[in-house]
């Protein structure tokens, strides 16, 4: 069976230990977590996790069912129609030639987030695969550090 990538949006009770239940489920049953982000849902007792995972059809089906089975799980959204965005922060030394960087940032919803005496930090927010492309392109500026957020997803 073919391995596929899948984005899940999981709404859970925002209570102690809920993240360990989810990550423990993935670890214990041998499922992959490619990325995982968590934050509270405003004005509720809930949290939303965006999980990017991969596996064959049966594994992906089991992941959804096993997530449902956890007592604090409110719902598991597995729509194919997600707006999916990821953010990356990239630290670049100031001695680089920034020729073309501005145009690249524009193309990837990017901006300069901060700067120091000898570096700047740029940020971009885009689809996961476009972030991938950006990180390839930005290599020519010899980044010192790269931090990715993992995907956040909203079903539409």
């Amino acid at each position, binding site marked *: 069976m073919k391995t596929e990538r899948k984005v899940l949006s999981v709404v859970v*009770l925002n209570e102690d230990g809920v993240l*360990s239940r989810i990550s423990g489920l993935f670890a214990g049953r041998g499922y992959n977590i490619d990325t995982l982000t968590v934050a509270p849902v405003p004005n509720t007792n809930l949290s939303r996790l965006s999980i990017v995972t991969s596996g064959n059809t049966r594994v992906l089906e089991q992941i959804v069912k096993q997530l449902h089975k956890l007592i604090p799980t409110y719902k598991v959204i597995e729509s194919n129609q997600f707006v999916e965005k990821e953010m990356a922060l990239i630290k670049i030394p100031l001695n680089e030639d920034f020729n073309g960087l501005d145009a690249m940032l524009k193309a990837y919803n990017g901006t300069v987030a901060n700067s120091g005496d000898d570096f700047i930090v740029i940020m971009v927010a885009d689809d996961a695969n476009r972030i991938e492309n950006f990180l390839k392109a930005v290599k020519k500026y010899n980044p010192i550090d790269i931090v990715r957020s993992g995907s956040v997803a909203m079903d539409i």
Partner: protein
Amino acid sequence: MELNGSQMVIEALRRENVSVVFGYPGGAIMNVYDEVYKQNHFEHILTRHEQAAIHAADGYARCSGKVGVAFVTSGPGFTNAVTGIATAYMDSIPMVVISGQVPISMIGTDAFQEIDAVGISRPCVKHNYLVKDIKDLPRILKEAFYIARSGRPGPVHVDLPKDISAQIGKFEYPESITMQTYKPTYKGNVRQIKKAIDAIAESKRPVLYIGGGAISSGASESIQEFARITGIPAVETLMARGVMGDDNPLNFKMLGMHGSYAANMSMSEADLMISFGPRFDDRVTGKLSEFAKHAQIIHVDIDPSSIGKIVSVDFPIVGDLKNVVEAMIPLAKEKINPEKYKSWRDLLNRYNEIHPLKYEDSDTVLKPQWVIQRVGQTLGDKAFITTDVGQHQMWAAQFYPFSFPRQWVTSGGLGTMGFGLPAAMGVKRAFPDKISINFTGDGSIMMNIQELMTAVEFDMPVINIILNNQYLGMVRQWQTFFYDKRYSSTDINMQPDFVKLAESFGGVGYRVKTKEEFDKALKDAIESKKVALIDVNIDRLENVLPMVPAGGTLYNMMLEYKE
């Protein structure tokens, strides 16, 4: 009502109609034990090891269908309990385990007898709680019982810090409960049920594959009725022994690694498998790609994640088994003619005649199968049967004549040696007027032998029948078959004097080498109303057969072993 945390525990147990708690005290749970001392709503049985407390609560739950309850302390008290909790989890047994914990202010400091208990129990419980605020305790206790017994049952663990068990708070115990995030499905989808019935009506060789869900949902009578109406033959998993009743001509008994020839062939030749609450365990299916190859699959289960986990299912039905089978019965009456399956039943009966479950009896040495059959003839439905794990367990599953659900109490999924004696104590507490037999091995009995003391002290006269071959017999059997008889660490002929051992605990002991001695010992043990150990010397090299080697195919059983 204002109560302290420990009083809340007692009061919650009273409202849940708990009549017995098994447990073992210690520093972090002393507040609770102080309230245990003052109350008279339930009996507390002090085991001699925490693992046994959990198994006893488990045995109590399995035979009665009620929620088993156990108390343990923090740290080692809790870690000792883990094997018991995992045993209950694997077999979906309803249980609430309350453990003490160090005070909240000390959590995370590696305090004396501190361990991250909820971290350890998480993968082997249905749900768990660390109580951090006295305000939450009544709700948590209510939820714990509700979660344990509803849906697919399972153990729930509540970790109670010592300061919380002393704090005073308002006690309002909800009468009923609805949870925002937990709503098991009980009623099966009507359209799916109709489709399943149509598939059955079209099938030529259907078979009922009955699992442990039939016991937990109380579906036994409904399933018997369904089988009677449709004339469809049935097979049972280890966990489902007792559902159909062994005198039922439609019951082809246990399938799987040590299943009967007819049961395993029925799966291999069926064109439709009607799965009532099993979970397609590897000990049942053998090699998956060959398992029920020609069959379409109907799977009824209350746990959606159980459906499609191991095999692809053609007709999934999520719901309570009893509920679903009852909905199937009127449709089946309309659409299914039991005559249609006569030749199929005849074929399976032929298989049974050609290759029945059998053994060669001997005049010189006792055969374990004879012992089990003999107890079956003597006690039948008067006894509950508990086992430990290994050869004796399989022989008991094969040769005891089961007649009602919950008569059979065994650790199936986890396969926990040491389960039998404490579980049999739980059985005796639930049914004091019935006989509680524990078939055990000379390996297993040593794993919780200290519980003889508990059984004697609390007057739980369990009869332990040790099928003693001076081997860790099941491992020895695999070594014989698959490891060229290299008996690595399985010869345990160094043994205590079990008769003296039983006597030293205040029980009675018997050493048995012949059939006459066995009959006499069993009769005497029953009449004595004492905790008994019957040490039965059996054929050292007897094997459990038939056997489907791990990863083998069900239609290719080893029916006998020749050197």
